């Protein structure tokens, strides 16, 4: 398809990305009302849920009504209904003959969630990636390489839909091992790598073992999703950009919702895609909206998921939302992307410790590689977190240097988080490697001491 004529604009759609707040909110209200009617009329789950709350879609006359009257939904409800009557149970809101694609969540919090998409849903989901691609500088003349196995994982399928929408050449690395990816990249000369952040580092490390320096390769951009990446973890950005000699971008997505928040070109946060969803920040304890700039749980209502609507859906992501950005976008910005998880927080000796906070610190410690895991155990009525990390290969054989890296990690964590965590070095290449979501959190606590979704 011929490419669009304007390549010099920093916006995929300037009019909507910079739309004044009042105009955006008017659109949100009309779209929320339409979605509520669709869900109420088409989904047995939503009809029961809204009836039980005593709310009819016609009662929602403001965005405030959405936040205060419409019930909150959670992944566990959808999984429960799907298990009762697979694959989608009462969560489905379209006839099955309109379902064009089936995907599943990765199951990192327990049982995978089944996700039905109509054809229109896949177009909208793919479009969400385009904002971030374009903002980073990717253009239709670029070639994407997907270091991705093409299973049922929604994240990178939708990236593929986005790359097609942008009009780029697409190369699939599906089915190859890591060495195969290196060889394919050298052979097909892509300019954009799509992968999880840790797998990008894994590919670069394997390439180095093969005598290949990927910073000299054709790749100019790397783009990531699926786990905390270059926006949430500045140390990760530095390592990826150095290894690949490329500009790293990131998108915050949730498989069952949308590729919902493209990375800000400033690199310090993500913008919620306000054409595809409405979102607000909720105090997870009280259920009330938090003040602008305060940390709260991101609660989303997606317009793109018409096959399985998600209304006031808990993401369990803790975010700090701000209203404006120097990049010019008016879409709500989540500074630093996801700051923590409501369900991946542990209290260690009276201190709340978030996974991402620990990861942020580890990424900055000299000698500590990106291969580590956080092991949760229970002792003396307290949660205990132990960090098991691989040292950088350059110091792997130097016991004193490895010990020093462990001490430095412990010191920095104590200084920043006011809690002492044990940091145990393990041999290089001893921790498992993952192509998709890296499993960082190893929860060995008894079930009763874990949150429901972590059991």
């Amino acid at each position: 398809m011929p490419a669009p004529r304007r390549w010099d604009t920093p916006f995929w759609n300037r009019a909507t990305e910079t739309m004044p707040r009042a105009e955006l909110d008017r659109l949100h209200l009309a779209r929320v009302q339409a979605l509520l009617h669709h869900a109420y009329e088409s989904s047995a789950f939503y009809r029961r849920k809204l009836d039980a709350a005593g709310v009819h879609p016609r009662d929602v006359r403001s965005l405030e009504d959405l936040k205060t009257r419409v019930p909150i939904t959670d992944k566990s409800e959808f999984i429960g209904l799907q298990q009762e009557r697979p694959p989608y149970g009462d969560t489905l809101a379209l006839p099955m003959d309109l379902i064009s694609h089936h995907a599943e969540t990765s199951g990192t919090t327990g049982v995978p969630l089944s996700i039905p998409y109509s054809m229109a849903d896949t177009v909208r989901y793919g479009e969400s990636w385009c904002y971030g691609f374009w903002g980073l500088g990717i253009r239709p003349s670029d070639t994407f390489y997907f270091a991705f196995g093409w299973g049922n994982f929604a994240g990178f399928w939708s990236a593929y839909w986005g790359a097609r929408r942008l009009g780029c050449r697409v190369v699939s690395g599906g089915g190859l091992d890591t060495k195969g990816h290196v060889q394919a990249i050298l052979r097909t000369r892509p300019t954009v790598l799509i992968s999880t952040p840790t797998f990008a580092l894994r590919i670069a490390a394997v390439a180095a073992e093969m005598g290949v320096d990927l910073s000299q390769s054709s790749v100019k951009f790397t783009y990531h999703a699926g786990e905390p990446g270059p926006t949430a973890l500045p140390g990760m950005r530095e390592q990826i950009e150095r290894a690949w000699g490329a500009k790293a971008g990131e998108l915050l997505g949730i498989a069952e919702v949308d590729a919902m928040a493209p990375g800000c070109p400033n690199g310090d946060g993500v913008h919620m895609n306000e054409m595809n969803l409405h979102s607000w920040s909720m105090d997870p304890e009280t259920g009330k909206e938090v003040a602008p700039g305060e940390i709260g749980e991101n609660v989303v209502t997606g317009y793109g998921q018409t096959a399985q609507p998600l209304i006031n859906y808990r993401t369990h992501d803790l975010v700090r939302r701000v209203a404006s950005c120097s990049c010019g976008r008016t879409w709500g910005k989540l500074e630093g992307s996801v700051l923590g998880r409501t369900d991946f927080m542990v209290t260690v000796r009276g201190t709340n410790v978030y996974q991402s906070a620990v990861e942020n610190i580890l990424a900055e410690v000299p000698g500590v590689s990106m291969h580590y895991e956080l092991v949760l155990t229970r002792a003396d009525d307290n949660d205990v977190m132990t960090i098991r990390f691989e040292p950088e290969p350059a110091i792997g054989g130097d016991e004193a240097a490895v010990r020093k890296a462990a001490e430095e990690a412990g010191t920095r964590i104590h200084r920043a988080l006011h809690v002492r965590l044990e940091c145990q070095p393990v041999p290089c290449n001893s921790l498992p490697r993952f192509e998709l979501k890296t499993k960082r959190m190893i929860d060995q606590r008894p079930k009763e001491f874990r949150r429901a979704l972590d059991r």
Partner: protein
Amino acid sequence: MTRDEQIAALTRARAEVGRVIAGCDSPQIETIARSADMELHWALWNLGEPVSLRAEMDEPTAAGR
């Protein structure tokens, strides 16, 4: 072309495509026309028009895909 002119042209195009959807007897042409209508609806959505949630909801018969 102004935003309003784009919206007017896209709306006219949807009406023309809708005539093809209603009048053709080829599964292939109907499928292509429905795909075109879905994209035109999406363009209007991204111009900030308060169109329906899904393209086929605008059809008088709501005939589905």
